[in-house]
């Protein structure tokens, strides 16, 4: 060995971390890899918030209330801003499994002694934390200054929203995961993804609050899980839904999480078998 060899016994690792915590951390780190993409993303968010707040401002036409709308103008603006921010906070890769099945890369995951769904979930959490810190918080500050969105006063609104957000996030995650599992059977799942995207866009309340749907549609929408993803957390946050009604909706959210979670878990078991029976 040459003398200039600066001995490799510099051990560049910290203490060992629990595996799923480590997945969260690495997933967070991964997001930073593409800086340009990040800035474009922030700009995109700002643009969307601008478009929707402008739209509602135009619809309200300077008035404080609107015929047939349960929202005041300021509530409506807040709804548009926070629905968009919550939506951004929930950005997640929704077809990683499909991609890995098509390319066969999934076999590299299956030879690791970890729970695959937990690994993916940890990665999603890492992504979400990244979006919160680097997109949602800066965009919130800009929005509060630039578009007269209002933050709630009561601390209870924050607590309830936090719970509603976690449950809504879980519902979305489980739906995404469940749909991506279809790739085990169909390989190409683009049309399913498109269907999911359509349902989500229409019925999650991300663009139009459920209140604006015709009366006959509301009970039907209440039967599918999508409004619990964005509409419920956003409505609780802006004070549109309060008190006992808020608690009731949180409970329904929880029921959805468990029901969908259970279905997904069964599908996952079948999918796993399918893969190792069919070959990766």
């Amino acid at each position: 060995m040459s003398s200039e060899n600066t001995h490799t016994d510099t051990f560049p690792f910290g203490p060992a971390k629990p595996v799923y915590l480590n997945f969260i951390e690495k997933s967070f780190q991964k997001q930073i890899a593409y800086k340009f993409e990040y800035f474009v993303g922030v700009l995109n968010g700002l643009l969307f918030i601008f478009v929707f707040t402008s739209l509602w401002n135009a619809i309200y036409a300077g008035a404080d209330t609107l015929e047939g709308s349960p929202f005041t103008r300021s509530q409506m603006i807040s709804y548009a801003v926070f629905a968009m921010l919550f939506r951004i906070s929930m950005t997640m890769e929704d077809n990683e499994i499909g991609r890995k099945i098509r390319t066969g890369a999934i076999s590299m995951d299956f030879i690791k002694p970890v729970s695959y769904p937990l690994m993916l979930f940890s990665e999603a959490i890492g992504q979400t934390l990244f979006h919160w810190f680097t997109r949602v918080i800066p965009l919130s500050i800009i929005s509060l200054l630039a578009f007269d969105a209002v933050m709630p006063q009561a601390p209870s609104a924050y607590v309830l929203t936090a719970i509603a957000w976690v449950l809504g996030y879980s519902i979305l995650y489980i739906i995404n995961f469940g749909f991506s599992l279809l790739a085990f059977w169909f390989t190409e799942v683009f049309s399913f993804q498109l269907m999911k995207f359509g349902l989500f866009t229409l019925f999650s309340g991300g663009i139009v609050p459920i209140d604006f749907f015709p009366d006959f549609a509301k009970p039907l929408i209440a039967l599918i899980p999508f409004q619990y993803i964005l509409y419920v957390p956003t409505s609780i946050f802006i004070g549109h839904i309060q008190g006992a009604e808020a608690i009731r909706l949180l409970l329904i959210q929880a029921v959805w999480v468990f029901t969908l979670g259970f279905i997904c878990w069964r599908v996952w078991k079948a999918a796993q078998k399918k893969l190792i029976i069919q070959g990766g």
Partner: protein
Amino acid sequence: MMSDDNSIIRVNNLSRHFTVADGKSGFIGSIQNLFSRRYTTKKAVDDISFSIAKGDFVGYVGENGAGKSTTIKMLTGILVPTSGKIVVAGNVPHINRAQNARNIGVVFGQRTQLWWDLPVLESFDLLRSIFRVPEDDFKRNFEELSETLELGPLLKVPVRKLSLGQRMRCDLTAALLHNPRILFLDEPTIGLDIIAKDYVRKFLKMVNKERETTIILTTHDMDDIEALCSRIIILDQGKIAYDGSTEKLKIDYVREKAIEIELHEDDTGTISIPNVKLVKSTANKKWLRFNQDDISVQEVVSQIMRERRVKDIAIHEPKVGDIIKNIYANGKAASQQTKLQKTLP
């Protein structure tokens, strides 16, 4: 059945069938395919048995579609056998997949187990968590591997920016960080340049020797086999066409030898020995070919030495690659020959 106590992998009567859709071609055919399809069964692996001893370095070869990767997938637990038994270091892979995963390291040449967007170092840190490698082992392993494979300058680089050779070095490290008892390599030298190939081979030889890791290598590169494997299993259409030492393969299958002779400048005579073919001849150089069943190397050489003034002589060993090509070419004849040899003491 062989009851080899030293064996770390045991495979008995292993088969794996796939159903393949028999699609009709053309536009009308494609539409018909949407509604009805006929299926045929393909035997990717057809009733094979072998056992591999601890510390062996085994070449697992065969043409594309011979069933190599299917076998490896079953040994690593990501594919269920149609029938037959597999035990890998005490585990049935597809039943105890996670448990089996802790005992094995895997390198698939066309894939990576590193995280694409993260620096190499972070992937290693993740693998340490995944395999719960004890602190001391990890430190020792990492330092040893990164020194031998000269990873120093690569550690901070995102995986996607590595060259293929660099990535292979990192992937080899990733597969060995948890000190697996068995290492599966599926075409680890594919796409590498000669220098990188040589490097990887030297490293694998060392791992096999010093860590006593059992290595199963599938490759299309016969130089890999010749340089590394003490034993070779040849697969042909899902069946084992040959299983034995690499040396024995040469003895068994190639009776033909080639001799190259350079004569002194003043010796312009020719060589004529019964049963030996003069393939090519120039003023001072002769190329000979013969079958060892007809005449031995010794006889040929000594006769030449008696008759001519020889300056230089070279006897060419058959290349394993050529032998295997021969086996593929006359698969049936070859497998019969193997069976014959197996029944003989």
